[in-house]
């Protein structure tokens, strides 16, 4: 048995390495995505605010990860008289 162990030692470093590689590739996506969402939020707000009055705090961007599909959800809260502004424009 000791001889066997000497040839095939039961080491832990390869496990550490593998766990880290899997974890970090996942975390980099999610945290990198955090930045992407912030940029999306800013750009969307800029476009919407050009046409209708809306507040900085009233834009929500959410990304729900799934397989095979992820959902990007964008919610923009505008003032109550928004649709009237649309009617007038028409």
């Amino acid at each position: 048995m000791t001889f066997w162990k000497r040839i095939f030692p039961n080491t832990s470093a390869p496990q550490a390495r593998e766990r880290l590689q899997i974890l970090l590739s996942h975390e980099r996506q999610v945290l990198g995505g955090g930045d992407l969402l912030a940029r999306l939020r800013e750009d969307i707000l800029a476009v919407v605010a050009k046409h209708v009055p809306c507040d900085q705090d009233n834009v929500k961007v959410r990304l729900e990860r799934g397989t095979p599909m992820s959902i990007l959800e964008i919610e923009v809260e505008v003032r109550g008289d928004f649709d009237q502004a649309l009617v007038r424009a028409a």
Partner: protein
Amino acid sequence: MAKIITVTSGKGGVGKTTTTAAIGAALARTGDKVVVVDFDVGLRNLDLIMGAERRVVYDFVNVIQGDARLPQALIKDKRLDSLFLLPASQTRDKDALTEEGVDRVIGMLAQHFDWVICDSPAGIERGATLAMRHAEIAIVVTNPEVSSVRDSDRIVGILDSKTLRAERGETVDKRLLLTRYDHARAARGDMLKTEDVLEILSLPLLGIIPESNDVLRASNMGVPVSIHDPNSVPARAYQDAALRLKGENIAMELPRQRGGLFSKFLRRAA
């Protein structure tokens, strides 16, 4: 104009303060003017590692709030004429450091020193982001251990997004410093190897500091490990890292204990 370095890691207890003191002293030993700055407000320790804890009168926050002038707060090292310390404050007010205040003080230091080395607190809160704000070079201190490697990866992401350089579309020069490395354990397969950590984090290597009693001994004495016993293994490893920061091309010598494969078999047989 000074080079501004931030020593950071995310995780606590991996050797940021030890590294700040050791690299600072090693650079000062070459004749450069160096200031080490403690950003760990509320939990300052760089003064203790540098052996200057009884000489602190004014601190970083006093300077920011205008209660002291910068030269009054700077502590000159007892051993090296060109090494200075700006201690952190022990106040419990986390917001004592302000962006404007830090900008002003770092700006002044950069005019008078060759190197400004910022010792970051652990974590990713305000103190840590303020410490890395002006960094041109970041030393990412990492232990060959899963939680430290993960936190280092996180810090790299923050260095790429929250620093002044990142905001200007430039990059911070990030270097990995592997500390508490035990060559024998890595060779046995019970510790992540240098190559493993390099591959996972994909950062250039600044140096490998071996696990050593000399580090604790130096901190007990309040002397930066790089000058406490300048011929010890960790001291030489830190001196080499400092020379690499100065652009010198120093071979990455593995700080191994003596004993090759043959003697290992002998030891096992015994």
